[in-house]
C-alpha cells in the first residue's frame, strides 16, 4: 500500500510525464508539486530530466537537463520535433502577441478568435486566387497548434482560442533564433538563386 503522500507524488509524476501540468486545471497535482516538489525532482533527476515549475505563470513541465560536459550527457528522453513551416510561423506570431499582451498590462488570458488567427497568418501565405484554400490551410495549421497544446479552445465558445502561456517556455528566444537563422539563409539563397536565372 502507498501512503497518501506517495500516492500524490506518484500521481503528479505521471501527470508530468503525460504533459504540461497547469495550476488552473490540474489542481491536485499542482499542490503536490508545491508541497513535495523535491521528491518529484529527485525522481526525474536520475534520468536526466529537469522539472520546471513556474509559479508566476502557473505551469510545470519536464525538460532535458542541461549539462555542460558532453561526456556526461545522458541519452535524450524528451522528444524534439521539427514543426512545419506554417505551424512554426503561427507559433512565432502568437509568441509576439503574448509579449504585446503583457506589455500593454492586460490581465487574465489572451483570447483570439479564429478570424483573428486567420488574419495574423494570412499575410504570410502566398497570394492565391483560391482564397478558400488559403483559409483551409490556416484552419489546418490552427488545429495542429492546438494538438501541440499551445492554444486551447474555450469551453462553449467554439471559435475562440486561448493562447497558453506555456508557449513562452517551449518557443523561447534560443529556439526562435535557430529558426530565424535558417529562414534568413533560405531567403537569401532564394533571392540569389532567383537572380542567377
Amino acid at each position, binding site marked *: 500500500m502507498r501512503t497518501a503522500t506517495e500516492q500524490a507524488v506518484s500521481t503528479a509524476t505521471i501527470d508530468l510525464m503525460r504533459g504540461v501540468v497547469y495550476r488552473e486545471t490540474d489542481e491536485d497535482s499542482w499542490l503536490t508539486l508545491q508541497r513535495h516538489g523535491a521528491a518529484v525532482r529527485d525522481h526525474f533527476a536520475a534520468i536526466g530530466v529537469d522539472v520546471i515549475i513556474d509559479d508566476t505563470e502557473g505551469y510545470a513541465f519536464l525538460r532535458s537537463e542541461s549539462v555542460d560536459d558532453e561526456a556526461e550527457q545522458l541519452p535524450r528522453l524528451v522528444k524534439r520535433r521539427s*514543426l512545419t513551416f506554417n505551424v512554426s510561423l503561427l507559433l512565432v506570431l502568437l509568441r509576439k502577441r503574448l509579449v504585446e499582451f503583457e506589455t500593454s498590462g492586460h490581465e487574465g488570458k489572451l*483570447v483570439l478568435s479564429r478570424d483573428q488567427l486567420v488574419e495574423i497568418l494570412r499575410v504570410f501565405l502566398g497570394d492565391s486566387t483560391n482564397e478558400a484554400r488559403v483559409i483551409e490551410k490556416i484552419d489546418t495549421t490552427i488545429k495542429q497548434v492546438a494538438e501541440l497544446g499551445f492554444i486551447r479552445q474555450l469551453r462553449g465558445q467554439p471559435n475562440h482560442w486561448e493562447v497558453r502561456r506555456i508557449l513562452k517556455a517551449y518557443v523561447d528566444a534560443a529556439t526562435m533564433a535557430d*529558426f530565424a537563422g535558417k529562414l534568413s539563409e533560405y531567403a537569401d539563397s532564394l533571392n540569389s538563386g532567383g537572380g542567377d536565372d
Partner: protein
Amino acid sequence: MDFETIAALQERHPTWRLLRAQNAPLILSFLGGHFVEQNNGATPAGRLADALEDQLSLLRTGDDESRFAKTAEDYLYDWSQPESGWLRRFYPADSDEVHYDATPALERAYSWVSGLRQRAFVGTESRLHTVVDLLRQIAYGTEQDPQARLEVLQQQRDEIDRQIAAAEAGEVDLLSDTAIRDRYQQFAGTARELLSDFREVEENFRGLDRAARERIASWTGSKGALLAELVSSRADISSSDQGASFQAFYDFLLSDDRQDELNELLTTVQRLAAVDADRRLRTIHHDWSEAAERTQQTVRQISEQLRRFLDDQVWLENRRVLDLVRQIEGAALQVRDGPPTLGLEVDLPGVPINLPFERPLYDARPAASVDSLAAPADEVEVDTSALFTQAFVDQARLADNIRATVPERGSVLLSDLVELYPVERGIAEIVGYLALNEDDLAVELDESGESLIDFHDHLGAGKRVRLPRATVSRR
C-alpha cells in the same frame, strides 16, 4: 478649461459620450443598477446578459416592439468597445468566460445623473465643519514647533474641559434635527462616493502599470537606470500617492477596533428618528471592505506581474523575442511564394511511455465481408412474441370482457368471445387473452382442436389467426 479642451472632452470622453448616447437611459439604469447600486464587481458575461435580457423584455412590452432590437450580448459587446468605453471586457485567468466590469466613466456618468435629482435640502453647515476640520489637520499636521503644537493641544483640552463642566452641570448640547439631517446627508454622500472611488483607484493603478510596462519595454539603458527612473517617476504602484493613500485607508479600515466602532456608530445613527435612514448605508462598511479587498487584489496581481515583467530574464527574453519576430516576419514575407520546409524545433511536452506488453497481441479476426445483395430470405419459424408485447394491450379490459360475458364457473370459446368484442389491437390482443393472469380466469389450449379468429389490422386489412382451440373459463 479652454474651449478646445472641453470640445475634446465632449468628443472623446466616454462619460460625455455616454450622456449623449441614444440608449443612455438603458445603459445607465442597467449598468448603474448592477455595478453601482448593487456594488457588484466583475461579472461573467452570461450572468450579466441574462439580467439585461430580463430588463430588455420588460422594456419591449411597450407600444413600440422594435425598440431595443439587439440581443443583450450585442449590447454588452458594443458598450465594451473602445469607442464606447463603458465596460471593461476581459478573460480572467481562472475562467473561460468573458467578464465585464464597469469603468470609472460609467460611475461618473451615473453619479452625475443621480445628482440631478433634487435633494430635499442641501446641508451646508456640516460641510463647513468638515472643511475647517481638514484645514486644522493640515495646519497642525505640518507644525514643527513643539511650543505651537502644545498650545493647540491645550486649546483643545480647554474646550473639552468646558464641555465636561457643562455636562456635569446638567447642560448637554444637542444637535437639532436639521443639523442631524445635514450631517447624515453628507455622510451618505461621502460614503457612496468612497465606494465608487475604488473603481477609479483600480483604473488608475492599471494606468500606472501600463505606463511602467511601456517604459520597461522600450527602455534602452541599463537596468539600474530603469529602476531609478521608475522609482523617481513614482510609476511604481505602491510608491505612488494613490498607492500610499489606498494602503493607509485599507489598513485603517481593516483594524478590528475600527470595524467595531463603525458598526456601533452606524447602528446608533440609523436609529435616530430625525434621520430618514437609507437601509443600504447600514452595512456600508462591509461594502467598503469588499470593494477595497477587490481593489487590493487587483493591485497585488498587477504588482506581481509587474515585478515579474521587470525580471532580468523575462525582460531580456522579451526584447530578444520581439527582435527575432521582426526578423522572422521579414524573411517569411520574402519567401512567401516559395515557403521552405524547415520549421521550429521544439521539445514535445511530456515523456510518454510505450510499454510493448501493454498492447494486446495481434488478434486475428475473420475478415468481415459485406454483401449488399441480400438473398431472399427462406421462410422460417421465428418466435415473434417479443414483437407482439410491444403494442400495449390493456389486459384489464380483456379480463372485463370475459367477466361480462361468461357466467361464473362457465366457459366459452375464445373465438366466440372475440365475435362479441372485435379485436382492436391485432394479434397482440389475442396473445393478451392467452396471457391473462387473473385469479378468477383461466385460459386453456387444446391441441386437438383448432380456433380461427378473424380481425382487421390497423390498416384495415383482414387477417386470420389459426391457433389451438382456446377456451376461456371463470372459476
